[in-house]
């Protein structure tokens, strides 16, 4: 009970910080008034149209990435799995950088291109991992993901090498991840893509526990292994593609958060998945707030902040675990 309360408080605090804190230094009273719609136009717009959707979006993306990481770790039975290892975000990055390089314009060009890129990589890795009739070999999934990641990185490198310097810098900054595109519209679109997969994955919690034992024991304990693996992979892919489309490539959340929860909570997915969502969301909302304010008026890419936070935290966790 205490742990859930702590997570709940962390989540609330992260969201509150995301709304209260920002490069436009607004005192809490002003922020509160702005939430209610009182105050000058610009302040109200900043709070209601920028900060609130941004904080909620960062939270949602962080939570989704954490859940995806946990699910992929169970799927490939490897604690080092995360969405980036499986090539999913490499494809999205390729789609997005390609769109920037081709100069595609339009509000949704970038997210759509990222989503298509992610799906392309997903399909490629899936085809590689399907052996002799519809059996998803998770070892090939892992290897295939690494290979596709490397491939997409190489292509991205090539595109960037051939692009004018300015585009190169912009593509790189986009890839590093950020929530500058956050708005109520983006949030709604993301939620539309994320809610269903998250619900299905939670529903499969018990099956995830079984899958961690190995495919054969899982089957004998009642798991429909092949359909389960397909479901997990597809849902994880949709979540990752949506996250990358909305906010670029943000690492560490999908890898570190599930581990932190595992160490503190155990591996039962019925608790692990919701806890990971709350912790991942808090982490990313907090990281985004930090990214926006620590060097104000300049912003850091969120992916940089999560890495800087993530690596020492991970080191501490591993030491605790080893002892």
């Amino acid at each position, binding site marked *: 009970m205490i742990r859930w309360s702590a997570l709940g408080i962390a989540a609330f605090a992260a969201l509150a910080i995301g709304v209260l804190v920002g490069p436009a230094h607004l005192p809490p009273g002003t922020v509160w008034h702005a939430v209610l719609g009182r105050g000058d136009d610009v302040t109200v717009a900043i709070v209601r149209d920028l900060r609130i959707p941004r904080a909620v979006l960062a939270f949602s993306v962080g939570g989704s990435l954490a859940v995806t990481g946990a699910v992929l770790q169970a799927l490939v039975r490897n604690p080092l799995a995360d969405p980036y290892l499986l090539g999913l975000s490499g494809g999205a990055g390729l789609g997005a950088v390609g769109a920037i390089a081709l100069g595609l314009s339009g509000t949704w060009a970038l997210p759509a291109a990222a989503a298509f890129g992610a799906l392309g990589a997903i399909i490629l890795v899936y085809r590689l991992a399907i052996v002799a009739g519809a059996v998803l070999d998770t070892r090939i999934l892992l290897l295939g993901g690494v290979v596709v990641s490397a491939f997409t990185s190489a292509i991205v490198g090539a595109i960037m090498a051939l692009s004018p310097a300015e585009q190169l810098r912009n593509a790189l900054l986009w890839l590093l991840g950020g929530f500058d595109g956050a708005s109520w519209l983006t949030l709604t679109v993301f939620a539309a893509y994320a809610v269903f997969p998250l619900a299905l994955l939670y529903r*499969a919690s018990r099956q995830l526990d079984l899958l961690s034992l190995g495919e054969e*024991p899982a*089957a004998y*304990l009642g798991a*429909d292994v092949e359909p389960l693996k397909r479901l997990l992979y597809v849902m994880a892919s949709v979540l990752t593609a949506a996250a990358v489309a909305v906010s670029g490539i943000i690492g560490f959340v999908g890898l570190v958060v599930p581990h932190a929860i595992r160490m503190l909570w*155990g591996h039962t997915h019925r608790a692990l998945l919701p806890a990971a969502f709350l912790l991942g969301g808090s982490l990313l909302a907090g990281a985004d707030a930090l990214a926006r304010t620590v060097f104000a008026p300049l912003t850091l890419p969120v992916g940089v902040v999560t890495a800087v936070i993530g690596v020492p935290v991970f080191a501490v966790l591993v030491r605790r675990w080893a002892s």
Partner: protein
Amino acid sequence: MGKLVFATRDLTFQFAGARTATIRDVDLSISRGELVGIVGPNGSGKTTLLRLLLGTIVPDTGSVMAFGHPASQWKRRDLARRVGVVTQSEEPAFPLRVRQAVTLGRYAHLGPFEALGAVDRDAVAAALTRADAIHLADRWTATLSGGEWQRVRVARALAQEPEVLVLDEPTANLDLRHEMELFELVTDLVRHGMTGLIVSHHVNLVARFVDRIVVMHEGRIAAAGQPNDVLTLEVLERVFAWPLEIVRWDDVPQFVPKRKSSVR
């Protein structure tokens, strides 16, 4: 005789890329309330046969039925409520406590959103006690010895409250006491109505406990029936490719492998 639990006819299966069939023309039936032992040397197809019976592998030709339906068409959940399986080996990807591990056996009885109830907790405790693993309940599975882990998995299979218990080389890591205790346990369960299927290469031990024995050799059934009828020197020396001596114990044949010097 009773109803048939498993029944196969002309069962044949070959792994892709294998030179010969792993299972060839196997006709086997296992009835309710029996304790059946499947013995044979390594590579004779014992584990593959189990997988075919349980529906995780689909045969090339022939049929295999479980509880009257084709084995591979069973929904895993439904089958898991009726059959508890202890595989040869298992390596969980993530650390678990023993109690948690055994609780996984209850999942087949729970809906996706259903919480664990008192019924489940009692079943887990009873299973752990039966398998002599209750004192391990709060240990991490990674810290268990091979034998302890085996007993925990037996407990998990018991927690499923199955009608049938299938054990693949269950005594591989067990010391003498636990080996005997496991066979006594299974015999006791069968006496109380469970059906038991044990795959083992311990011919002698199996012969002492089971109602029927099946001897496998290169994918075929070399002999099947009551131990006294079926376990002859001629069959076993051929199957195990080693000179043997028979003695009798517990009213069943026991085989002692001869040493090379005595043969000479």
